[in-house]
């Protein structure tokens, strides 16, 4: 990254002096960087997938993969899980995004903020919290249900240790992605089209059906894809919920293959079908989006007018808040309960209140402070360096700046197909040998985190670029600016809020990241997520609750500050470029 970083400002300076377009070398640098980050570890994975333990070429790993039930079952479970999560997320997030963006639903801003807040929660923390709520016997909700209905002690309303429970728990922390994509797309949609529609006599619903939904559809598809891939790559939640239920998903299966004695060749083979599946999905998305022009945001546009919901306003708000109870209100209530209660399955009260967990976490647990430091250092570095990289790639691809830009787009999205845990192993294989022996340092985690976060950052910025019409840049270039100058003076200000959002996304993403870190950490480079996972495996839920709450508070502070800085910048630049 250091290379790319140094390159941009220098070339920008050069441009102003010499008016030479340096996007060619920039592309070369980015490609080289991505090669190191992605191609190298994936190359090792492919080598391993087709090799025996002794390094002989073989297809045996794939025969095992598709015939041994202990591999076929996780594969089927994973597909079911990903499809269900994706469907559930769209079902909930699309109407909610529309309500928040395009209607006069009360508390719309609050709902948006809360959705962002639920994104701050690492999914595996959510899974632990949902264990506290919906474990069949000790779960607080089940206890409440038995108390109210007088049901016998072995009957349960919810059982989180099931496939349905897992789908639910993952969807809780995946739907925000879909919501944000949909709501942002609806925000950017020009009001004129809808106005025109109503002027031509269409009612509210006809306009929604004929204008709003078709325009939002590509984003929804993108959201469905993101949700699918999130569920596919999720490691922490299945490790916490599926293993007690007695089934594996692909990620937990792969993880179990790295237990002693490690079988990286089988793990590598297991990940290749995922890669192909994802490539196919990405291509079909491109095919759907590619045929239509979606550059709807020119230099001028009208603010969309909110649709009046009338009597349904409060019902809409209640729906949104009910949905938010799932990732947010209920889990945090459970976490707070556990953090300060002597036994997590008992409700907090004067006689069960204790500060023991807080004292233990901060004064006795020797890993807490180093893990906090490592995590925040890595999150800041990844968000900054990864954001710049994603911006660069998104720009080159969106503007088709140079020959070969498609390769960049493919490379930048390809980590989506790689379960974090497999990426972790790929990096492990690639960087435990000379010339770059990075294992045991924070650098390998930095590379891992940038790689893991790159696809989403790139997609987010890419879709932002899609909605900024190139005509503005073209005008700038006609007036003599180089490409990079145009990028800086025209595009960057327009993308400011997307860039800040991306920074926050990456920051939060790093803090949530567990699956690559769980392979790459050493005792000196432990991060918070790994610490929590370790605590989970030994059942120390009190310390998990304290650490999770601490982490969320600190993350929220960072995000608020980032948005303040962004907000101040925004105030200096006219928001309507064309006006």
């Amino acid at each position, binding site marked *: 990254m250091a290379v790319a970083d140094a390159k941009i400002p220098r070339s920008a300076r050069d441009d102003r002096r010499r008016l030479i377009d340096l996007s060619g070398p920039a592309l070369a640098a980015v490609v080289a960087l991505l090669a190191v980050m992605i191609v190298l570890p994936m190359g090792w994975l492919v080598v391993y997938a087709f090799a025996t333990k002794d390094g002989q070429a073989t297809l045996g790993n794939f025969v095992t993969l598709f015939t041994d039930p202990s591999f076929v*079952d996780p594969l089927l479970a994973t597909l079911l899980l990903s499809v269900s999560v994706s469907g559930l997320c769209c079902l909930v997030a699309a109407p909610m995004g529309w309500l928040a963006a395009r209607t006069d639903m009360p508390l719309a801003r609050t709902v948006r903020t809360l959705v962002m807040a639920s994104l701050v929660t690492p999914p595996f923390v959510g899974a632990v919290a949902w264990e506290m709520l919906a474990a069949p*016997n000790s779960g607080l909700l089940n206890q409440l249900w038995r108390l109210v209905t007088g049901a016998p002690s072995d009957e349960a309303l919810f059982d989180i240790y099931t496939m349905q429970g897992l789908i639910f728990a993952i969807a809780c922390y995946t739907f925000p992605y879909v919501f944000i994509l949909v709501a942002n797309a609806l925000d950017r949609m020009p009001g004129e089209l809808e106005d025109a529609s109503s002027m031509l006599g269409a009612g509210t619903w006809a306009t929604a059906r004929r204008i709003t939904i078709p325009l939002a559809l590509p984003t929804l598809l993108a959201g469905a894809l993101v949700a699918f891939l999130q569920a596919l790559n999720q490691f922490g939640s299945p490790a916490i919920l599926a293993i007690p239920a007695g089934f594996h998903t692909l990620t937990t299966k792969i993880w179990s293959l*790295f237990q*002693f004695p490690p079988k990286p060749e089988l793990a590598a083979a297991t990940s290749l079908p995922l890669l192909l599946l994802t490539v196919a999905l990405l291509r079909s998305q491109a095919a759907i989006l590619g045929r239509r022009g979606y550059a709807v945001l020119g230099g001028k546009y009208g603010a969309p007018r909110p649709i009046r919901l009338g009597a349904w306003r409060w019902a809409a708000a209640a729906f949104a808040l009910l949905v938010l109870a799932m990732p947010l209100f209920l889990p945090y209530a459970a976490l707070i309960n556990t953090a300060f209660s002597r036994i997590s399955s008992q409700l907090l009260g004067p006689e069960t209140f204790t500060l023991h967990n807080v004292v233990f976490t901060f004064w006795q647990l020797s890993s807490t402070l180093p893990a906090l430091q490592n995590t925040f250092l890595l999150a800041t570095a990844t968000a900054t360096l990864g954001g710049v990289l994603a911006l660069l790639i998104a720009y080159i691809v969106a503007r088709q700046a140079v020959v070969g830009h498609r390769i960049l787009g493919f490379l930048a999205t390809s980590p989506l197909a790689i379960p974090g845990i497999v990426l972790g192993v790929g990096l492990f294989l690639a960087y435990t040998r000379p010339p770059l022996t990075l294992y045991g340092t924070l650098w390998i985690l930095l590379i891992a985190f940038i790689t893991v976060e790159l696809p989403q950052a790139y997609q987010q910025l890419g879709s932002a670029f899609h909605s900024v019409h190139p005509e503005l840049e073209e005008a700038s270039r006609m007036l003599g600016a180089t490409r990079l100058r145009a990028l800086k003076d025209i595009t960057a200000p327009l993308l400011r809020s997307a860039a800040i959002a991306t920074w926050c996304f990456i920051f939060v993403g790093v803090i949530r990241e567990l699956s690559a870190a769980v392979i790459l950490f050493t005792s000196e480079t432990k991060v918070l997520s790994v610490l929590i996972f370790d605590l989970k495996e*030994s059942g120390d839920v009190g310390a998990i609750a304290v650490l999770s709450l601490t982490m969320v508070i600190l993350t929220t502070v960072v995000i608020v500050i980032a948005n303040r800085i962004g907000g101040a910048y925004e105030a200096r630049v006219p928001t309507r470029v064309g006006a």
Partner: protein
Amino acid sequence: MTRKLTRRRVLAGSTTALMASGMASGFVTAAKAAPPAESITPQLIEAAKKEGKVTWYSSVDLALAEKVAKGFEARYPGIACKVERSGAERNFQRIGQEYASKIYNCDVVNSSDAAHFIIWKRQSMLAAYVPEDVARDYPEAHKDPDGMFASWRITLSPIAYNTKLVKAEEAPKSFADLLDPKWSGKMVKAHPGYSGVVMTSTQQLSRDLGWSWFEKLSKQKIMQVQSATEPPKKMLAGERAIMVDGGEYLLILMKEKNDPIEIVYPTEGTPLISGPSGIMANAPNPNAARLFQAWSFTAEAQQLNIDVAGLRSAHPKTRDHAGARKFSDIKVLREEPAVVADKADEIKAQYTKYFKV
């Protein structure tokens, strides 16, 4: 290889002896004999203080591990003890991974799977060091003849139940009782792929009860968790009424606090788990490692393990925990670490066949 031998030479303190063993090591991996016992000298303390820290990998319950660490820090101020707590099998995998990449973070390691020490010893990953207490007091069965490790802790893996959910007269008395359909969906169990306690107990139970017992047990809708420290907690929380396996020491502590649980020492015998400790050959803080190792085997430290952690000890000068059944009154199953060392993968595969995870 050369570096490891060099380091070991330094640690063993006897150049000639190790020159010989170094030359021999191309053919045999085991060292020849235990070095002489060493006491805690002012020089050792001084050297350890210069290093200022020690990193201890252990699989003992985290809260207890941190208490031991704090006990050491209180005894020897100026030396920070950093605890790396994870399941024994995961620590084993991690140490292997770190050593393969020449990353040496671990000073002292304690594992609840004694087989690990056999493997580490074979691979010359341990440094010989015999604390005075080990040489003088520990029974032969609990120390390595070559001085590479000794049993730092002993625990059992009994059955236990939540007394709010199971009446004493209905409670299971044996492993065989757990196959009763009435316990279906009511049991929690840890995993041999993660926990050394469970790896060890799985070998003993599969030998004495047969794999068919596991096969039947797997049809009882078991809740599968990872660490042997978790079943006691899940049972106490009431998530499941009975734990099939798990560390006895946590149960002893729970009983001490009058938590609603009861321990069952099964009639077939209770799996016995000795957890050895040793110093890594490439320990980054070799003196602090020796000091920690020496201290942790003293009667004083072992009694601390018993009193605050509910563990058992091989040190004859310690007393059983006040709230625990006397060790001599419990029928225990025989440990076979050498078998575990050779068959761990088979055991895990067989287990996974029945329990799916």
